[in-house]
């Protein structure tokens, strides 16, 4: 029911004409993610939880990092960032 995965935001497109969209990535796969219903519009470098093509929650890197020990994918993503989070 709640299948959703965390993705890191690379780019945000928020003009007023089309619905707001982020380009987000997880493990090297990029997806366009709709931002119509996310609690806070993310900045590049933030993480979003994505369900059915829509972001349902934005997390700051530190919020995501807080539960590092429980998020296997997060760990790999963070490793990927050449040692930095941004």
């Amino acid at each position, binding site marked *: *029911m*709640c*299948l*959703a995965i965390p993705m890191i935001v690379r780019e945000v497109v928020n003009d007023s004409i089309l*619905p707001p969209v982020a380009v987000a990535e997880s493990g090297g796969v990029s997806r366009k993610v*709709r931002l*119509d*219903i*996310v*609690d806070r519009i993310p900045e590049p470098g933030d993480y979003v*939880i994505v*369900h*059915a*093509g*829509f972001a*349902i*929650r934005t*997390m700051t890197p530190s*919020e*995501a990092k*807080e*539960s590092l*020990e*429980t*998020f*296997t994918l997060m*760990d790999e993503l963070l490793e990927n960032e050449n040692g930095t989070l941004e």
Partner: protein
Amino acid sequence: MRDEIRKTVSELSVAMSEKTAGRELKFMEVCGTHTVSIFRFGLRSLFPEGLEMLSGPGCPVCVTPAGEIDAFLEIAAKGNVTAATFGDLMRVPGSSRSLISVRGEGADVKVVYSPAEALTFAEESPDREIVFFGVGFETTIPSVAATVAQAKRLGLDNFSVFVSHRLVPPALRALLSDGEVKIDGLLCPGHVSAIIGSDAYRPFAEGMGVPCVIGGFEAVDIMKAVFGLAKQAVAGEARVENAYERAVTAKGNIRALEMIELVFEPCDAEWRGLGTIPGSGLKFRDEFAVYDAAVKFGVNPVNVPDPPGCRCGDILKGIASPEECPLFGETCTPLKPVGPCMVSSEGSCAAHYHYG
């Protein structure tokens, strides 16, 4: 990293066993993804002796009445229609057929990962009627609402949604008020809670004395959450605990809730096995009624009785385990399911069958 996870999981398992000391405890998980995750990680083997997890009505596919599936199949079979649905629904039988069989008969049925994909079909094929099967709880509802809002902005007239959405809190209230159901705590759905907020469970904890812990979906998340329930149950406490703080806040996702509010309003709805639960369904507000597929195609769900012998209802209430259903594993298997609990990969019966 993996070793750390193993270690934490193991420590939590030990701590839980020490805490409960073999006491009999029944906790209900109300999220199909929790059911599947618990099975997939093999966590059952790590819960203490005496601690039992019951699978409640957390699988939206399982609780969709057969009559509504039949109604959607009727629409899908129409000549000009492209039926768009999540993969979960493809094999769910209505009273006799499923989307997969209807597709075999020539209906245009497409599996989508997002309602937005269905809307794109509508934009690309103006000569076809695109109908999306709107199933899912509060995690999914805002996306469907946003898609319909977008359809309105674009002025599309060849897109509609067959609304079968359900709301979790009214179902919890009905369950906890049912005399037959006796549980010592609720493992609350992580992503539904991201939308509705942890405060939504206060009436059950503070009002009805049932410990509520919101859990995430990784192995450590689930172990922490169940441990939280065990601690409360043993101490005789009943409060709402948020063990998924990175995703869930007290008030939830206001933007998402407002989007639901914009497009839908609550109504009574039937849940398979649980009967009608007041205020637990959704219907379009008048301004969006033109997107209502049932109205557009003049199709009305008919009440369909449960197949004889099928104990899906009791299983959804957590009163019976899948193994206690006479049809389980013999007459009713994932390949030839009788009731939805077996069809959806998140249904209790499918999870028990697949993962033991």
